[in-house]
């Protein structure tokens, strides 16, 4: 039976991170999971709202949660790390303050219970994808990779309670399951420059540049991320990075869903890698896996994905 989960894409996945959305959706289809978008969803308020107006920063995510609740969704998948962070913080704040909850409910004119489970993309993979990976894996991810978590996925730890805040491990574990070698590096949660991407591009070039250089120094061949902001800075701002590093770097930046998709034999269109600015060569990363015997219905060959 098809599993059904709520899905909150947020603005990035409709725009700059369209390939992230494509890979999440294709991967879900591959694993027989139906992601149902929360109807009439709105902006989560990320970065702008919580700097300006605390109530507004809680009202916006609350409306999303209330919409999900209205549509009887028990779990929602939130691939964008910033959205995940804002939704989780809102839930945490409202859970401990009834008065605040009442104010918010009045503002959105909807009742709100705070029991919806918010899954980031890693949690979604751990719970719904990993158990079936041994069956669905057609290729091994055959390269050395640097897993880069960024700040929003694991912090603040007392609210998110997800992975180790200083040296997170979960993405590394997933990549190892695909057959990749993950490097042990100190820049897993280093600042990429985030929203300064637009206003101070050269600074982002420096901050993200340090991350890219460290990954290259440790012989990584791809950087794996789970946040559209991180991806934008490491991929889209590569000219600024290269300018800072004074060299031409070619290390691609993959969403973790794209990496899994590649190992499961999804094509470029499905994983969305063709949209990247730093070019991803189709079959460079994966090697055909000796097919599992009882998997005859779904044979995938190398030729298909090229």
């Amino acid at each position: 039976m098809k599993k059904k989960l709520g899905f909150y894409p947020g603005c990035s996945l409709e725009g700059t991170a369209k390939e992230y959305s494509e890979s999440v959706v294709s991967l879900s289809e591959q694993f027989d999971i139906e992601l149902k978008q929360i109807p009439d969803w709105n902006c989560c308020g990320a970065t702008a709202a919580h700097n300006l107006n605390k109530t507004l920063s809680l009202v916006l995510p609350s409306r999303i949660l209330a919409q999900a609740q209205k549509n009887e969704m028990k779990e929602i998948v939130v691939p964008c790390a910033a959205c995940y962070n804002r939704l989780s913080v809102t839930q945490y704040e409202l859970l401990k303050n009834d008065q605040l909850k009442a104010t918010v409910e009045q503002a959105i004119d909807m009742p709100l219970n705070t029991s919806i489970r918010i899954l980031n993309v890693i949690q979604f993979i751990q719970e719904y994808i990993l158990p079936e990976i041994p069956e669905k894996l057609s290729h091994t991810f055959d390269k050395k990779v640097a897993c880069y978590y960024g700040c929003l996925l694991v912090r603040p730890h007392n609210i998110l309670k997800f992975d180790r805040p200083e040296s997170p491990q979960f993405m590394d574990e997933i990549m190892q399951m695909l057959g990749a070698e993950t490097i042990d590096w100190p820049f897993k949660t280093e600042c990429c420059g985030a929203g300064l991407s637009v206003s101070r591009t050269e600074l982002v070039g420096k901050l993200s540049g340090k991350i890219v250089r460290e990954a290259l120094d440790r012989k990584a061949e791809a950087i794996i991320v789970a946040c559209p902001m991180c991806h934008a800075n490491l991929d889209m701002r590569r000219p600024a990075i290269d300018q800072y590093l004074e060299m031409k770097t070619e290390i691609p930046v993959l969403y973790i869903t794209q990496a899994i998709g590649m190992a499961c034999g999804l094509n470029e269109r499905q994983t969305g890698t063709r949209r990247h600015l730093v070019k991803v060569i189709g079959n460079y990363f994966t090697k055909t896996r000796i097919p599992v015997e009882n998997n005859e219905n779904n044979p995938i060959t190398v030729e298909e994905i090229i």
Partner: protein
Amino acid sequence: MARIGVFICHCGENIGATVDCFSVAAEAAKLPGVVYSVDYKYMCSDPGQSKIKDAIHEHKLTGVVVSACSPRMHEPTFRKACAEAGLNPYRCEMANIREHCSWVHEKGEATTKKAFDLVRTLVEKVKNNHSLEPIKVPVNKTAIVIGGGVAGIQASLDIANGGHKVILVEREPSIGGHMSQLSETFPTLDCSQCILTPRMVEIAQHPNITLYTYSELESMDGFIGNFNVRIRRKAKSIDEKLCTGCGLCCTKCPTKKIPSEFEQGLANRTAIYVPFPQAVPNKPVIDRTNCRYFQTGKCKVCQKFCPTGAIRFEQEDEIIEVKAGAIVLATGFEVKDAGFFPEYGYGKYKDVITGLQFERLASASGPTQGEIRRPSDGKIPEKVVFIACAGSRDPAKGISYCSKICCMYTAKHAMLYKHKVHEGTPYVFYMDIRAAGKNYDEFTRRAIEEDGAKYIRGRVSNLYEKDRKLIVRGADTLLGGKPVEIEADMVVLATAAVSCKDSESLAQKLHVSYDSYHFFAEAHPKLKPVETNTAGIFLAGACQAPKDIPESVAAASGAAAKVIGLFSNNELTREPVVAKINQTPPPVFSTCMGCELCMQICPYQAIDKEEIKNRNGEVIKTIAKINPGLCQGCGTCVAFCKSKSIDLEGYSNKQIYAEVMAVIND
């Protein structure tokens, strides 16, 4: 018929300015049972006390109410005055009209009314008071000191020099504790071993001290003056009488790669070992978990080589029972272990070490003979970063307190490093420099100004290894949070000082309370700093909270003084405020039905069973029996007793109800 005297004190203006003492005295005189009532400026003064004494004689008083300050302040004064006049001191009560009335209310009628009400309730109570006698318990003049670090050593020597027997129990094979591991001590930079080892020898040679090393406290019962303690003497696997400490066994032992606890893992030891060359007693023990013979059944090399035949593989743990009048707890502290600082890479990078490891590196008797060489490759480090508050003062990590010793030892480390590696640069990341103490601030200033330690106010966010260097990244908050990055060769963490792992179970064995960090709790933070809430058990050193050497020694001497004071009497006198089972003779008529509920809830294990026998020696009834030596008068059993068969002397149900009724029947 009761004949009560009431004495209202003005306490200068403290009470007199707010409460109309004269009218309170006049009103009190009208109360039934009151035969004499007077007010006076200072009741605690000599003429004031004389007023009470004279009134007792003149009016044949059977009870006295002094309404003045808190009984914590002057109850002993007034009770003594009553006793001198021939009235049983426990027939004197105090109504607190200062802290409970004049100090907390405005002047006015209502305040005076409240003062009178307080007097009135106490008058009703005193009518029900009866004569009590202080409890006498004998004192066994032997002290047990648990823990042989500097605090335990000091306490033992002080008590022993005072002429009393001491049993010193140490868990490790040698006494000496953390101090024996230190290189040099702040703020004088005198060698730790040079000042400690003579005292360790003194312990071994003192005629009044019995030393049990490699031993632990098994269990304890009894009460102040009369503790029964069982000590487990772990099998050392040698005959101490035959062993001469020649050390041949240690050189011949084939298992040589065990990380030495004394060297903090920076060097190895053998399975049969003496922790360090200056150990007291200087005789080896076999570490059975690592010994080849105990693990595989084959070896016995040490036995073959021992010239006196002192090896005893078949030896077993021995449990000895000793009696003592007092116990001093001096179990010390531990440093927070690895894994607590993933961001600082402790345990991951070899050159990230703790302060205690640095002490061993700097120690002349350490693994490098006092040369500062980093553990990974033995290179002399050119830049060393010291991180203060690694774990301490960090509520997010669960340790909110200041470990107190780190600021000073970090300054000392920076200084020692600079003295040994002249061209090296020490960096210190700190939150605050807490250098309160005699010559302490001068010492840290010396480290900065004369020895050139570079102090950076800010936290280190993380560090990582790159090209055999440790890249330390932090912020300089005095420069407005400017990021700082230092390529260091070695990093030293001033890890938090925490309580010993088994301190909680030890506290439970001894019925001593402890705080949320499992440090033992003192009876009063200011006025009873070395006492615990269990009479006869005292605290010394860092088992109570992080303490440096001077403080530990001072606390140890304080605890020793308390023990010697306790031992200066053959008998102990205690306040008779203890619980008592209703036992109107003959005892078979006691209302106690022997349900044993009180035994279970008594926090001091003061209640036992008592069998009542008939003339033929047959048990006809079992009732509860309270040991007045143990009872602390908390009254918990009174509240729990189903048949109301227990009363607290001096605070009986009858007395309390009389007070309550007086309040109600205004």
